[in-house]
């Protein structure tokens, strides 16, 4: 494994290796000296073509806990705005001494392009590309699930037999795509729900079920329900009649939340949450909601990925 571009091509063994390594990385975050010398002398470049505080900070914390140096490259204030190409930008960064490039880009497939066209010798980590994939988010979701389900004794275990419902804007969601492939690889059953206008073409070829009735799905008592953010910024047309209608049918409203309150069903959200739209305040603030744990686990998972890609070649 040289790059982490998508969960679709991530093998079962590599996925488990990342989750198990993250488990050990999490124990570092619990101790007083939260630093390891593992990546001393290596440089991680955060190259973000889209704004993201959460993911960028998480990668930065992960790299620093492993003693790597971090260069944050904000595209808005860079020569990219003068018309510099991705290839020239990346080669410039590599000349400065980057060993890994963590890239978020508005174009689907940008990370693949960077990794496969021979423009750079760095390890490429996809931190979200267009509406394609966001692999570390799916890995931290799987890690959070495993921790909650197995009470932090999850090392070596997958998610076989677990039912997860993903709700909302599947069409624009790279989080949903990455989760579908990873959860499938780990043996879980995935059901998608949301407005039919926000289901991707070809969803029937994915290893999932589609059910538009959220109430019926919640009644099945899935192990987790993952609420996606309604991404207003990606919607160029009208995909549902009104926000109120969306909330009524696919939001985790107070009424819906009451039906799953105090059951083992976990509520997951990749953040940032639109309170009152896809999730009610009561659901957002409940103990069943793992959103903040997901953020904390993000650092451990990204430490694991940086270590496995940069310290040496996994499986070689």
């Amino acid at each position, binding site marked *: 494994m040289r790059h982490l571009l998508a969960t679709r091509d991530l093998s079962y063994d590599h996925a488990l*290796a990342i989750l*198990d*390594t993250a*488990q*050990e990385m999490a*124990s570092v975050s619990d*101790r007083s*000296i939260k*630093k*390891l*010398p*593992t990546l001393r002398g290596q440089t991680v470049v955060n190259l973000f073509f889209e704004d993201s505080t959460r993911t960028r900070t998480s990668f930065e914390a992960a790299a620093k806990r*492993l003693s790597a140096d971090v260069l944050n490259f904000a595209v808005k204030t860079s020569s990219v705005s003068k018309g510099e190409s991705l290839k020239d930008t990346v080669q410039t960064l590599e000349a400065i001494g980057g060993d890994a490039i963590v890239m978020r880009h508005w174009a689907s497939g940008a990370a693949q392009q960077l990794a496969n066209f021979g423009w750079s010798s760095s390890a490429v980590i996809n931190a979200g590309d267009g509406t394609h994939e966001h692999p570390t988010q799916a890995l931290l979701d799987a890690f959070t699930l495993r921790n909650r389900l197995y009470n932090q004794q999850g*090392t070596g275990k997958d998610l076989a037999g677990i039912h997860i419902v993903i709700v909302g804007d599947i069409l624009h969601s790279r989080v949903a795509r990455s989760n579908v492939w990873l959860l499938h690889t780990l043996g879980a059953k995935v059901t998608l729900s949301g407005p039919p206008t926000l289901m991707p073409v070809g969803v029937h070829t994915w290893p999932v079920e589609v059910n538009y009735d959220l109430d019926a799905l919640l009644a099945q008592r899935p192990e987790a329900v993952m609420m996606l953010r309604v991404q207003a910024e990606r919607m160029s047309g009208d995909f549902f009649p009104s926000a109120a209608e969306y909330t009524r049918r696919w939001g985790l409203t107070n009424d819906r939340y009451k039906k799953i309150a105090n059951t083992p069903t976990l509520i997951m959200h990749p953040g940032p949450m639109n309170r009152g739209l896809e999730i009610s305040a009561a659901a957002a603030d409940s103990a069943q909601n793992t959103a903040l744990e997901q953020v904390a686990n993000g650092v451990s998972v990204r430490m694991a990925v940086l*270590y*496995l890609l940069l*310290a*040496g*070649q*996994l*499986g*070689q």
Partner: protein
Amino acid sequence: MVHQPVRKVRTVMSAADINRVLTRIAHEILEANRGTENLLLLGIPRRGVPLANRLAEKLAEIDPEFVAAERTGQLDITLYRDDLGRTGTRVPASTIIPPVGIDDAVVVLVDDVLYSGRTIRAALDALADLGRPHTVRLAVLVDRGHRQLPLRADYVGKNLPTASSEHVRVHLAEIDGDEAYYTADQVQIVDVIN
């Protein structure tokens, strides 16, 4: 046809030998420490861990006040190694520190083979990030020489002069028990002849 190098295998320690030297080391630890007060045993994965457990059981037999389960742990050094780029990464094993903590304790690191000394260097770094022991000692089953760092063991099961072309293979029931060619605890020297 792929050319397979010929391997000459010599068994240099039997299960009984291993058991005997662990008993001796347990007595040496007690003598040097004047008892079991503040004593912690930390095995280095993989094979240092069962050796630390066996030593702890022997200490508990000699001194009933020593509660093996509360005084034994393991220290993974994977993330502290200086040769990660050369050997490739592996999933780190767990570090388990006994609940009493390592501050002001007499920590005995336990490993199977002492060779270049780099593993122990990494273990000392890992230990320093976890706390401040009063003293750190090193117990190894086999010292095969060829040190690359100024380190030595306090307790040695057997000094085993080897050539650098040879491998030392340690089999322990806890780890290697289900391998087909394996019969009992033993230490072997494997010579690769091309």
